[in-house]
């Protein structure tokens, strides 16, 4: 693949963060290219979500560098991350439960009228357009998001992430709350976004999902990267071995967390 000749969209370089005495992420390095899907795998508490929350600005790293398009990026809060075109769909969905879908889609970036008041009708019209593409069955625009089903809330969270021309999309367990049909929809969406040149970090427990969608996988264990491999070069069993034992197979590039042979 010649994509590795170009500048990575994102480079996470030697990132560490500790909560109290626990090193949640310990010297993790990872990169992402345009139009690429990188799957992040690992047990609960392996540090996947924490690493990704550093990129999305929810946590502040203790050390290490983040580079966007090869240049050092300053990301101290979610607003900074959004300014770099980094959008995140969190595991908890992070939707404001008591306002409607349109308000959620535009939260923090509301459309305003000439005199600076909220332009609710314009936001609702745009929301109808975006949601119509994403989930044509979605019609409950006037109700608080609290009243929606898990899948509908998920559509709202995804629509919010893609509404503002994201370049880098982080999806933390995007299908955790979904049924099979909706999961397939998310899969189609990921392929579509990938073809538009968006780089995607996909965090998942489901190794099958990841093999279907990701170009590369990165396995983490105890806050460290076990190894990074192209999905074409490793088998699912080998990746399971990485997740469970930290054993790095020949097809993968070992990281600091790999079991010493």
């Amino acid at each position, binding site marked *: 693949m010649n994509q590795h000749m170009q500048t990575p969209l994102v480079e996470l370089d030697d990132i560490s963060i500790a909560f109290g005495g626990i090193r949640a992420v310990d010297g993790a390095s990872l990169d992402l290219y345009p139009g690429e899907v990188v799957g992040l795998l690992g047990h609960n508490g392996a540090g996947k979500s924490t690493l990704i929350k550093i990129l999305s600005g929810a946590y502040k790293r203790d050390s290490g560098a983040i580079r966007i398009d090869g240049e050092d990026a300053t990301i101290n809060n*979610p607003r900074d991350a959004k300014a770099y075109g980094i959008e995140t769909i969190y595991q908890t969905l*992070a939707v404001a439960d*008591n306002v409607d879908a349109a308000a959620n889609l535009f*939260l*923090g970036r509301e459309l305003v009228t000439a005199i600076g*008041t909220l332009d609710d009708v314009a936001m609702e019209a745009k929301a109808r357009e975006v949601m119509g593409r994403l989930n044509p069955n979605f019609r409950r625009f006037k109700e608080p998001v609290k009243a929606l089903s898990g899948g509908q809330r998920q559509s709202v969270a995804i629509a919010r992430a893609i509404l503002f021309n994201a370049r880098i999309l982080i999806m933390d367990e995007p299908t955790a709350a979904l049924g099979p049909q909706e999961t397939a929809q998310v899969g189609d969406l990921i392929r579509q976004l990938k073809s538009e040149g968006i780089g995607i970090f996909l965090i998942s427990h489901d190794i099958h999902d990841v093999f279907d969608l990701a170009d590369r996988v990165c396995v983490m264990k105890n806050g460290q990267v076990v190894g990074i491999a192209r999905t074409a070069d490793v088998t699912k069993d080998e990746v399971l071995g990485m997740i469970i034992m930290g054993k790095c197979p020949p097809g993968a590039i070992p990281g600091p967390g790999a079991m010493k042979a």
Partner: protein
Amino acid sequence: MAEQNTIESSSTPGFIAGSPIQRFLSATEIDTRLVGMIGALLLIWMGFHFLSGGLFMTPRNLWNLSVQTASISIMATGMVLVIVTRNIDLSVGSLLGIIAMVMGVMQAEYLPGMLGFGHPLIWAIALAVGIVCGVAIGALQGAIIAYLRVPAFIVTLGGYLVWRGAAWWVTSGRTVAPLDSRFRLMGGGPEGAVGATVSWILAIVACLGIGAYLIYARGQRHRFSFQQRPLWAEALLAALGCGAVIGAVLVFNAYPWPVRIAQNYANAHNIPIPDGGLFISHGIAIPVLLAVAVGVVMTFIATRTRFGRYVFAMGGNPEAADLAGINTRWVTVKIFMLLGGLCAIAAAISSARLNAATNAMGTLDELYVIAAAVIGGTSLSGGVGTIVGAMIGALVMQSLQSGMVLMGLDSPLQSIVVGIVLVVAVWLDTLYRNRAQ
């Protein structure tokens, strides 16, 4: 997807089968909760009217009720935003006390010396100083809550003691009186009401405003070809709104000046006194106009601005608001600044009404303000509440007080009743919410 389709058809206005009442409510898009509150208020009024032997629903009592409600309802509009973001402010009563004291000292002791006694700007400067004080104190408390992460309950509990102490300290406990004659107009009374003619002009302006708003809303929906309300529903809403305004003005205009004051006024202006006494209408009281203006502005802020949207989003899910890139800390500070400013307006009304600033002014107001917001449907778990609801809540509280006084109930009994009503009101609201879900 069959389930989704059925839900959709039952939530889209205009296409509803079901009972005529449901159809009516969805066509007009009237908030059923608000209707319930107004209904409860009217029940309370009629109950007291009956129990007090026809004393309650008289122009005189309703006019006084409106003036008595002004101060609490102004603070309650700000308290709504505080409670919506899962905070609380226990210091508003003490804040009212210290600000009233500062404004009192300004207009009674400093400004006359600097500008001359009775200078026409004294009231404005005193009020401005009060508002600056209120906003500054709110900013201080808000910053401690938002940036130092001390719980609002503790910060404002501290503020409750600090500002009450400060109010005492300013004049060593001395009462400041009398206040500036123009400042006093903010407290109501025969002088502090706008009279019949101006009341009618304001009523016409309000009715035009209601009409203009409905037309604007229709235009906005048309712009994106959304479903419109049926015309009869629009007409009904306009009629209800204008009817309420005109009804209120009729009541306020039906309350004449007291005989002696009217006589003095007639003598001073060489007006002949007709048989049966001179009838000069009070019209709308100035504090009531202030409260209505605050209500309109606060509703606008809460529903039509980014700030208001952030307040409600934060209340629903603080983490999500933060992750969406909202500067939640700064929004929190702004909410407390806003409430501080509103306390200053309330302080002006309270002290002007008393024609004095005392160090005990505003004692227990924090509880009435919180109770008004909660009775008005503001949820202590955050995210839910309306400005109008809180103002009606304040009116309910004040109606209870006033009604019990008219019935001649003892003061301890009054407290017992108000306490019980508060708990029952919140319980009913919980029932309503559970059913609505």
